């Protein structure tokens, strides 16, 4: 049973459908990746699940509850965390203030989550008083992920977390994602680097032209010859 499930989503911009009858989801404590070629509708799937894009058909469930008609902010309160692909930090705010803004809608004390985020990303603790905009690309991604973690989400959605960072940084970022999942937070992400993403994923969705092409465990997809040939570069 999926913790977060987007079922048979059809949506798009204006009259053009980008997704048609697409289903993606993630189970508790697991990592799921959405991969596929450019223009397959991966980011659109993320946006529609988080409510940034109105969907025409289909339903979205969180913990078996229908959340199709909720605003993004309300979804945050229900336990979803979202990291956009770009512009995902407040550049002139300090690192700590960025994290505080993540917890903005919560009225309770968040010092324990802050400690958890700093534990997860020690470098952020070191640079807590620096402006987030001055950090390196990888550190900025950490700020962005950390900000989304501040509401203790049940599920964390990452839109291309490795965009614009070096392979080494990506490696360590993925390590952190595994850690986050191990702590019980489900992770649903979109990735351009399909191979590396599927390696750490429990479940993978291969999209093409807005449709589910393959859905299987990460390992199975990695060994699937057709997937390999078409999307993983041989």
């Amino acid at each position, binding site marked *: 049973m999926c913790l977060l499930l987007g079922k048979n989503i059809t949506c798009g911009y204006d009259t053009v459908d980008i997704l048609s009858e697409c289903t993606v989801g993630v189970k508790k404590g697991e990592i799921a990746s959405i991969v596929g070629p450019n223009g397959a509708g991966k980011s659109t799937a993320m946006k529609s699940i988080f409510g940034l894009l109105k969907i025409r058909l289909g339903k979205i469930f969180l913990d078996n509850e229908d959340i199709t008609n909720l605003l*993004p*902010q309300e979804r*945050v*309160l229900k336990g979803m965390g*979202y990291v*956009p692909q770009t*512009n*995902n*930090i*407040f*550049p*002139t*705010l300090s690192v700590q*203030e960025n994290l*505080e*803004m*993540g917890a*903005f*809608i919560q009225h309770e004390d968040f010092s324990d989550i802050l400690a958890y985020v700093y534990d997860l990303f020690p470098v952020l603790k070191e640079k807590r008083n620096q402006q987030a905009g001055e950090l390196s690309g990888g550190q900025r991604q950490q700020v962005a992920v950390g*900000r989304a973690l501040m509401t203790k989400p049940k599920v964390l959605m990452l839109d291309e977390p490795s965009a614009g960072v070096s392979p080494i940084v990506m490696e360590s970022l993925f390590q952190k994602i595994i850690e986050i999942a191990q702590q019980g937070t489900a992770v649903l992400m979109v990735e351009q680097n399909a191979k590396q993403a599927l390696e750490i994923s429990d479940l993978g969705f291969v999209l093409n032209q807005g449709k589910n092409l393959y859905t299987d465990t990460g390992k199975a997809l990695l060994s699937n010859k057709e997937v390999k040939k078409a999307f993983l570069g041989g």
Partner: protein
Amino acid sequence: MEFLNSFILITNYIIIPGLTYGSQLALGALGITIVYTVLRFSNFAHGEFMSFGTMSTILLTWVFIDSNIKFGTFPTAIIVLPFSIIFTIIYCLLVDKFVFKFYRQQKSKSVIVLIVSIGVMFFTGGLIRFIIGPGDKNFMDGERFILKAKDFKMLTGLDEGLTIKSTQGVTIILTILLVILLFWFLNKTKTGKSMRAYSDNQELALLSGINPERIVLITWIITGTLACVAGTLYGLDKSYKPFTYLHLVLPIFAAAIVGGVGNPIGAIIGGFVISFSELLITFAYKKFFFYILPDNFLPDGLLQILSTDYKIAVSFIMLVLVLLIKPTGIYKGKIIE
């Protein structure tokens, strides 16, 4: 002794007036900067908002004086300031509700909103002249001087006198208090931080559950406060004439841009850069050199870089220079497309 005299001369004619005028410009520039970063347009009506605030202060001052409410030698205008601030805020909020809100919701280009702000400028300017008239108003009462030149000379035995007007003292102290308060608010309170977050990245702020309407409300509260105080202090120090406030908007823009638009610290620095360059460039240095140079080295002429008539033009020259050489200003500001 001669050195001390020259120092007092500079203090009297440049440092104290520069700090005063710089404070007034800084408060004005802060208002422009905050509207620019949060609401994303250049507000040409800001000078008229300052004028509106000053008008409120003047009207209230008259009411207080008429009802014989006095506070010793303290200027009445400062006592009524909290009330006139409220009036100014209400006016700003009304303007926002009936004018600016629409364009915010339409996500209009910032240049369109700039032209809209010119409409607001016309309307407000007319309203003010209609209510209080176009004439010169002096509303300073109470003790005029903190330090008089004569007393200073007696006290120190120097040739040069030092004068500190009460308005100058009040301006500098009030500015320091207000700036401290503003920075405390922006950096230490949750609301202040959310305001900065909103100006940094609107989309992400919305995702984080920050309520934009609340941010807009607070922005106008701050802007109204700054405008009212800046206007009142300027009017107390010089005198109030609606016409001058229309022209004040350009030096204030100059201050905001020179410092780096979108950066509150920049706005303050910019205010002082403008005020001091105005004074330094139009000051006649003859007397200064008279003190520090031997007699036979003293050149003729006033030793003035530009004549005093160009005082305000200096701020425009600074503005143009900064725009051409370093459009981001001294402190790198935010560029909003």
